[in-house]
């Protein structure tokens, strides 16, 4: 038997959590948008407490997303919020801003901390830097390739989390870009009946002239404007390469997907992980795992290996 990696996903509600636990998820990232970034649903403290209770009863974990770029107003409320998260029973706090680390040190000294700086968590030495300051897990940037991911794992004692499925954020601005654009259009009276705010449920996407087949979702919320990748990462075929490297946690991004789709994805990865852990030597990828995902995949969004096998220049 090999060490069993964790299968981690977000959830929009308690009901979704139930279904995803049933499908085989081991852990959840949840939170509220005042503190956490790009969450599919808002859980207040009472909701988080319920979620933790549900998760623990089923042998799963709950991590609270406190990974926004924080302003002074929010920072002033962090000690109380983190204390409340600890009382709610969360298993860890996900952070990017050092302000959260500072607040957690005093408000919840024993709390586990996962360092997630999105696209800027790019090397083992910096992971270890945060490890020395109290983080127990590094969430790696999606822009790393497999060799780099493996080298991070080989050079740290921290748990290593990578995203294996779903869309990724490729641009985050504090500006209300969609609102601003439609305001500009309306100034000369050329636009009627458009959503002035690009809320997530509006389903807006960008197309760049030279890439007509790629659709980049764009939406706005209280934290600004988010642009997402045009492809969905899908590593289920090659998951054994990450399992051989003893990566600790596999993250599925469920944002902007239906619960049925996310359930199907969780089932596929669950099957792959269980088969591998049972018998690493005899492990063989099963086409049916991928087929199940493909059958529900939006045809305008390619399933890709992201940056896992790419070399980037600069």
């Amino acid at each position: 038997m090999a060490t069993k990696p964790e299968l981690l996903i977000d959830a929009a509600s308690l009901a979704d959590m139930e279904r995803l636990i049933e499908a085989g998820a081991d852990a959840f990232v949840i939170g509220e948008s005042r503190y956490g970034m790009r969450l599919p649903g808002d859980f207040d403290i009472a909701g988080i407490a319920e979620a933790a209770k549900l998760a623990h009863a089923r042998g799963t974990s709950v991590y609270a997303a406190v990974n926004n770029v924080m302003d002074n107003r929010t920072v002033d409320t962090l000690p109380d919020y983190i204390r409340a998260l600890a009382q709610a029973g969360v298993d860890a706090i996900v952070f990017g801003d050092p302000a959260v680390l500072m607040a957690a040190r005093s408000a919840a000294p024993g709390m586990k901390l996962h360092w997630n700086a999105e696209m800027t968590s790019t090397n083992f030495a910096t992971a270890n830097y945060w490890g020395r300051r109290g983080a127990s897990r590094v969430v790696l940037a999606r822009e790393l390739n497999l060799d780099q991911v493996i080298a991070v794992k080989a050079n740290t004692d921290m748990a290593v989390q990578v995203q294996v499925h779903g869309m990724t954020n490729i641009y985050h601005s504090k500006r209300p870009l969609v609102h601003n654009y439609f305001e500009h259009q309306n100034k000369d009276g050329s636009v009627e009946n458009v959503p002035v705010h690009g809320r997530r449920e509006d389903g807006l996407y960008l197309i760049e002239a030279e890439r007509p087949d790629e659709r980049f979702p764009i939406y706005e919320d209280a934290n600004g404007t988010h642009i997402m990748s045009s492809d969905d990462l899908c590593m289920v075929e090659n998951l054994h390469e990450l399992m051989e490297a003893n990566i600790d946690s596999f993250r599925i991004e469920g944002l902007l997907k239906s619960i049925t789709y996310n359930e199907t994805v969780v089932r596929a990865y669950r099957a792959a992980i269980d088969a591998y852990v049972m018998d690493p030597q005899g492990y063989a990828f099963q086409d049916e795992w991928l087929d199940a995902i493909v059958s529900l995949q939006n045809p305008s969004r390619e399933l890709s290996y992201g940056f896992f096998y790419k070399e980037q220049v600069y």
Partner: protein
Amino acid sequence: MVTTQTAPRLKGKRHRLAKPELLAPAGNLEKLKFAVHYGADAVYIGGQKYGLRSNADNFSFEEMKEGVEFAKQYGAKVFVATNIYAHNEDIAGLEDYLRELELAGIAAIIAADPIIVETAQRVAPKLEVHLSTQQSTMNWQAVQFWKEEGLPRVVLAREASLEEIAEIKANVDIEIEAFIHGAMCSSFSGRCVLSNHFTDRDSNRGGCCQSCRWKYDIYEDDIAMVGMDADKFTMGSKDLGMLEHIPDLIDVGVDSFKIEGRMKSLHYVATVVNAYRQAIDSYMADPERYELKQEWLDDIQKAANRPLNTGFFYDTPGAEDHIYEPEEKAAPYDFAGVVISYDEASGTAVVQQRNHFKPGQQVEFFGPNGTFFKQTVGEITDTDGNALDAARHPLQHIVIRTESPVKPMDMMRKRIR
């Protein structure tokens, strides 16, 4: 965004104003010299590695030493941007590189990646470490964290407002640096991998291809949201320009005023530094009677290449702060020459040609501290006295009669329309 709001000031009691540092970009050694000569208190440059402008000239260690020596004559400092987010393979070699910077006499590095911060503190203790804007720091508690880590200065996120800066200054005793002029990422700095996705170029290691300034169509369910001939969607922002708001920035206690633009021209750097230098000196000399001078604003316009706005200092940028229409090159002037020497007896200057000019053209001469005059170019010769119909050879030395005395490193610009 036009606004008449002022920053929160300490009401009721007078407080001593600290004179801020004016920090200018220098893409190469010549730009460094001019930035310092025109009044920068410090300049920041890029070395051969670890910087975010892989397309800029970038300094060798030898050039850094020469730059440091030059700056020293003016009491100015040289900083080096080591602001990439490192990948595993970038870690080897980091210690040696930082030691070389220390040996070259560099005063500070500007670092985003904590491992570069920590390594510098360990192996090159004489280098100050300034936290880069790429860390998107915009709250006092995070600033406090970096202070406790031993950093003397934090460059704030460009999203921080004047009010937030005042709160940070009130809570933490640390130097705060803020961008006051130049191009801006429209995203949180560092939180953008558009280049990676569009062109496989790593934005956080210097490969940014400015995809935010490209044009996009915005769709919902296969239907374009606006007509095909309407202005397209873009994330591209106007440039930051805070010249009209120097008192507000000084009053909230910003310690270092940073001008963006290691890729910008010599003329741009000298012109922008010159204007801010005069505004800062004028306000510090007599805050009560300070007046913004129209000529400073006019000068900035002669070098600007995008329309300006005030970023997040007063409020969140709106529709008017983006560039949806086709960009027009705003500057009606071109850099034409640099004064090499001046002969008082004959009233002539030797000018190194930097762009085409010819007799009959309107030009302006300017130097540090606002020295300035206009004239028409008269007869010109080469240094052997041969008459020329135009100065058309790059870097050629041209003799020209000037209507007022000029000094070496004064600049000449010509009107182009």
